[in-house]
């Protein structure tokens, strides 16, 4: 293996010593053996053995791949990816306009970021998604579980109960309308207690706890393999106050983003983050932009910005790899996140014009 020593994941002090001693490729290291290695660089035999194990693992990984073995590699052609994407499900949000601009709903294996001013509905959407991910497949859902990591303390269980109850009722209505056997069977498991018991809730108080939680997530997810959604409500909050060193913050955030994308990819789950807004003071005006800086903007694959407009809540799709940018209006009712219904007393619009975004509720589920 002609891997250079500089490219192997060893500790920097060890790497410096190896370079000083004149080792260049991994093959030379393997040839020397642990005793020779410990003598040459002056480290203990255990350290030399450990280092050689790491090197051997890397080289074996390489060899397996060149020989054509698959293993746990993430390599495939675009055609295979296309087939995979077409069979992948989406997590619907119960607001058909939002689902449309997202291309069907919140996508699995991608990080979606929701930014918005306080009170616009980010936590509501997160709670709605935590319930929606559990909808059985015959109703158009992904039948998964949810992990909710809360940093702001805004998770209200009573609200989740309301949302879940509305969702269950909705599914009952569809089942009655369609009268199919599998619907009935699925409804037996889709009850209020089940929904609540499949939302795993974690509370983190500062950024170290958040980082630790995210780094421990892969282990948790391998034990609970049905998890299809990870929500982190308030990723900006622990990083915004009390941070003197901005470059450290950027580094930590980037490491966090990489870890989240690995989780999303390996476990085929969607990751949803909520972010706050901050004011940028330009030359002549000030604008509201998402917090945590420019470099954080690259972490999320899909970015949604929620904002107010004269008492109406709007959602803008700002960044997406496959959909066009657009804006829609939404509404938050006692049942949760919903489409905008045309007002009962039409004061601004022409009376006979049907709101093109409104669709009858029962047809929404047939996806």
């Amino acid at each position: 293996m002609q891997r250079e020593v500089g490219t192997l994941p060893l500790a920097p002090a060890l790497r410096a010593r190896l370079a000083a001693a004149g080792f260049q490729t991994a093959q030379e290291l393997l040839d020397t053996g642990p005793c020779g290695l410990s003598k040459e660089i002056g480290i203990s035999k255990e350290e030399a053995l450990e280092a050689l194990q790491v090197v051997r693992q890397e080289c074996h990984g390489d060899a397996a791949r060149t020989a054509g073995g698959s293993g746990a590699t993430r390599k495939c052609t675009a055609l295979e990816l296309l087939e995979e994407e077409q069979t992948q499900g989406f997590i619907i949000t119960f607001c058909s306009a939002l689902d449309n601009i997202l291309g069907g709903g919140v996508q699995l294996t991608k990080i979606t970021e929701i930014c918005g001013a306080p009170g616009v509905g980010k936590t509501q959407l997160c709670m709605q998604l935590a319930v929606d991910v559990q909808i059985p497949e015959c109703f158009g859902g992904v039948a998964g579980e949810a992990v909710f990591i809360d940093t702001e303390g805004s998770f209200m269980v009573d609200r989740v109960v309301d949302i879940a109850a509305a969702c269950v009722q909705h599914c009952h209505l569809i089942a009655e309308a369609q009268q199919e056997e599998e619907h009935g069977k699925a409804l037996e498991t889709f009850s209020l207690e089940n929904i609540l018991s499949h939302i795993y809730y974690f509370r983190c108080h500062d950024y170290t706890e958040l980082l630790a939680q995210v780094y421990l997530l892969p282990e948790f997810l391998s034990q609970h393999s049905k998890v299809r959604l990870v929500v982190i409500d308030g990723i900006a909050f622990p990083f915004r106050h009390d941070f003197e060193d901005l470059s450290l913050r950027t580094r930590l955030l980037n490491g966090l983003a990489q870890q989240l994308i690995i989780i999303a990819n390996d476990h085929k789950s969607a990751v949803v983050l909520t972010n706050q807004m901050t004011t940028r003071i330009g030359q002549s005006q000030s604008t509201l932009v998402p917090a945590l800086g420019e470099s954080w903007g690259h972490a999320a694959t899909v970015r949604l910005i929620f904002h107010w407009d004269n008492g109406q809540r709007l959602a803008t799709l700002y960044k997406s790899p496959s959909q066009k940018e657009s804006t829609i209006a939404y509404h938050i009712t006692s049942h949760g996140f919903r489409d905008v219904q045309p007002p009962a007393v039409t004061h601004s619009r022409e009376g006979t014009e049907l709101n093109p975004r409104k669709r009858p509720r029962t047809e929404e589920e047939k996806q």
Partner: protein
Amino acid sequence: MVVLRAGLCPGLTEDMIQLLRANGIRTVVDFVSSDLEDVAQKCSLSYKALVAVRRVLLAQFSAFPANGADLYEELKSSTAILPTGSPSLDQLLDSGLYTGEVTELMGAPGSGKTQVCLGIAASVSLGLKQHVLFLDSTGGFTASRLYQMLRAQTENEEEQASQVLGRLRLCFVLQLEALQRVQVERVFNIYELLSALQELRDRLSQQVVSSMGPLKMVVLDSVSAVIYPLLGGRQSEGLALMMQLSRELKTLAREFSLAVVVTNQVTRDSSTGLLKPALGRSWSFVPSTRVLLESKESTWERASTQRAASLAKSPRQPTGTQVELDI
């Protein structure tokens, strides 16, 4: 700095090495740069043997000077120019992407870097029928969007076909083949990226005939996502890894005549408030051409699909030219 070892060249025996080491000569560089008469005296080895060994070592380890004219001829025959699929971008890049070079696309989030990369991959895979390796480190690769672009491109080209049904099937087959020529690898961390590049180099140098076929382009989206977690702080190993990566990319591009496309982020300059490319000054020497993508409207309140691409660094064109792209 290779350690002297028995068998490196004929005439270098184990005893010789032990004697040399006892006198402080451990690597090839030490050997070649020391005074041989002195060494012969101290180690009681024959001068002739040492000279012979030195000649062989020099031949093995030093670089060959190349003639300028020979280099030009070689470049003319091996460099290819790959069209990007968008005529205005081609115009900006002096008719396309040059093989043997690293080109960088930079822009703010949502400015269209991944889209341009997908467009280029679609054009090379469909139009030139060459293989493309797409290294994705952000999870932004969507195969359905690539398929959409391929469909749009084949419909443009197949206008002359007579039979409608035959044309549709032909289009479909062409698109499937083009999708198969794009290989996607997900790398989320610098070591995975380096091992993927190493594996690519092994495969290309052994010329293994697999599904890879003739590779012409490597797209890395994005380089800053893997390097950012390492930069900064007191340790300088982040910079070292970044330079290792840049060396890998450049040697791959040069040795195997590939076009390498890299995407980068932009950060905000703290003093002036202007946008500047991420990864700092050291990285700015790596790509030979840099294109900055920005959207026409700077705020998100009025979204638009118009994008402007401006040339920030190029060995061939004057910088500062701007063209409009439509995604």
